[in-house]
């Protein structure tokens, strides 16, 4: 064992045993962030705060929730909402948090796409981010089942049924996932396990991985500029804070982030107290009934775009059934963003608006996702069905042409 001298302060005592001084340096005071960024770079920290809120409110809900088809609905709608002191508050925080976290994740994702923060060394940041997106989606889906209302039941039914489209093993796979021929008690308890333990654990691991992946390529900036972080850090440490292009994560970067988090929290609690309705669907206040499909079912808003891609194909094309086409398109929609770093063949790391061709691609994609989201909630009849088809096709075509558009762009800008 190394020799210990008597510590003169508490800090020194801990430093001898845990190396805290160095740890704080590496993680905080000498973790360098570019100066040239805006409030959109605070979204990652906002998501982290929201995840913490979800975790804490979830722990309180867990004390009274009962994962059993006969008790789940009442334990949520009577015990938690009416008997438990402030139970309603934790439920509202949890429901609003789950909805809003997706809003912020989407902003975070599309910020990354807009500024080209997914390529030229930042691929692993992007992949780990997409992994978080998939995990959050699974967390949202499994959590939605727990109150055991009509929407819980039918969302669970339709989404598990999707796996039936996988060739050969589909039918058995659905029964295996559900633990029964239909969505039942076995389904509820296993998704309860996933929601409160396995997926949150995986999310925690993925967050650590995401942060770690940021360390080497560093955060991007508003101009997509590449510079020598070590050199700029030396400048900062030497006292040239003005001339240096970087600032330390703590306290300089985070103090700005806290400002954004502060505004965001005001907005968040405004929703929690006065506008929680959007996160708590009225139909889900009817108890689950496996023998009565509600007249119109739809997922939460953040799944609407991919849901619309799923149902956009309502007729057969070239001998492939509309159902299979929808499933294939849905599968592509959920996986394609992972490939973005390789579909974009242009070396430019610049804000989309400074890229000659990519800017059109980006804004058409945004518009298309909005159309998909709006029509995903409308009944799929008449002209709506055709809008759904057109916007689903647009989505697929956009990703199919991206490599070609960006290749042309690379030629035009001459490899810059």
């Amino acid at each position: 064992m190394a020799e210990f001298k008597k510590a003169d302060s508490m800090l020194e005592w801990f430093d001898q045993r845990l190396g805290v001084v160095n740890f704080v340096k590496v993680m905080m005071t000498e973790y360098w962030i570019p100066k040239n960024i805006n409030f959109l770079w605070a979204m990652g920290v906002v998501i982290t705060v929201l995840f913490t809120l979800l975790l804490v409110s979830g722990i309180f809900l867990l004390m009274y929730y009962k994962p059993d088809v006969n008790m789940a609905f009442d334990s949520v709608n009577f015990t938690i909402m009416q008997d438990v002191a402030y139970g309603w508050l934790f439920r509202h925080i949890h429901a609003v948090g789950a909805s809003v976290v997706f809003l912020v994740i989407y902003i975070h994702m599309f910020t990354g796409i807009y500024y080209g923060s997914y390529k030229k060394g930042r691929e692993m940041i992007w992949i780990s981010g997409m992994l978080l997106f998939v995990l959050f989606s699974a967390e949202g889906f499994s959590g939605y089942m727990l109150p055991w209302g009509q929407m819980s039941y039918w969302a669970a039914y339709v989404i598990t049924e999707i796996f039936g489209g996988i060739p050969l093993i589909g039918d058995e796979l659905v029964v295996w996932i559900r633990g029964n021929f239909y969505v039942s008690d076995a389904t509820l308890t296993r998704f309860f396990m996933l929601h409160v333990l396995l997926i949150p654990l995986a999310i925690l691991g993925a967050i650590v991985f995401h942060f770690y992946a940021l360390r080497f390529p560093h955060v991007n900036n508003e101009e997509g500029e590449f510079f020598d972080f070590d050199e700029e850090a030396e400048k900062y440490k030497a006292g040239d804070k003005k001339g240096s292009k970087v600032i330390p994560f703590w306290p300089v970067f985070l103090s700005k982030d806290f400002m954004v988090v502060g505004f965001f929290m005001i907005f968040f609690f405004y929703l929690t107290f006065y506008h929680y309705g959007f996160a708590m669907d009225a139909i889900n206040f009817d108890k689950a009934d496996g023998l009565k499909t509600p007249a119109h079912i739809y997922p939460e808003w953040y799944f609407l775009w991919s849901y619309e891609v799923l149902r956009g194909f309502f007729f057969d094309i070239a001998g492939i059934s509309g159902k299979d086409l929808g499933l294939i398109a849905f599968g592509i929609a959920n996986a394609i963003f992972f490939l973005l770093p390789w579909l974009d063949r242009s070396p430019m790391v610049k804000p989309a608006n400074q890229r000659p061709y990519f800017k059109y691609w980006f804004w058409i994609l945004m518009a298309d996702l909005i159309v998909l989201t709006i029509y995903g909630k409308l009944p799929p009849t008449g002209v709506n069905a055709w809008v759904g088809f057109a916007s689903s096709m647009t989505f697929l075509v956009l990703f199919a042409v991206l490599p070609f558009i960006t290749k042309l762009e690379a030629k035009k800008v001459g490899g810059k």
Partner: protein
Amino acid sequence: MTNESRRGFIGKAFGAVAGVGAVASLVAMKKTWDPLPSVMSAGFTTVDVSALAENKLEVVVWRGKPVFILKYSADMAPTDGRNVKVGDHYFSVMIGLCTHLGCIPAYLPDAHQFKCACHGGEFTADGVNTFGPPPRPLDIPPFKVDGVTLVLGEEGEEYKAMTAKA
């Protein structure tokens, strides 16, 4: 033995033990998620169809799934291979789950038609898909005709004859 080859041997031996252990645990985990035996052996459902009203949908539950039983009125034409005659009447007997993604379609008696609210699928009274994403007609559950009762879950003569035609 040199240190190298000893370490190599230990590595391979551990690899083998770990591999067997990993496969065994995966099998066990897969089986834990399987439906329980009580679920798999869930029983049969018997329905007396003699008292049903014409052109009014009857829904019974079989293995947790809704089963549609529709008694045809005189103005409804039966289809070969989709309808079964019990006594003097023709019936549709079908699993009441949309073949698209499993919502329960609603019956519109005036139009003699089923409509699925989820993604707009439509079916005729005998369950043939006519519009929207459903890829095939409503499934027919195994059944047996026993006088005026239907036994769901057992393959009878009529069922076999129907599936042979379809």
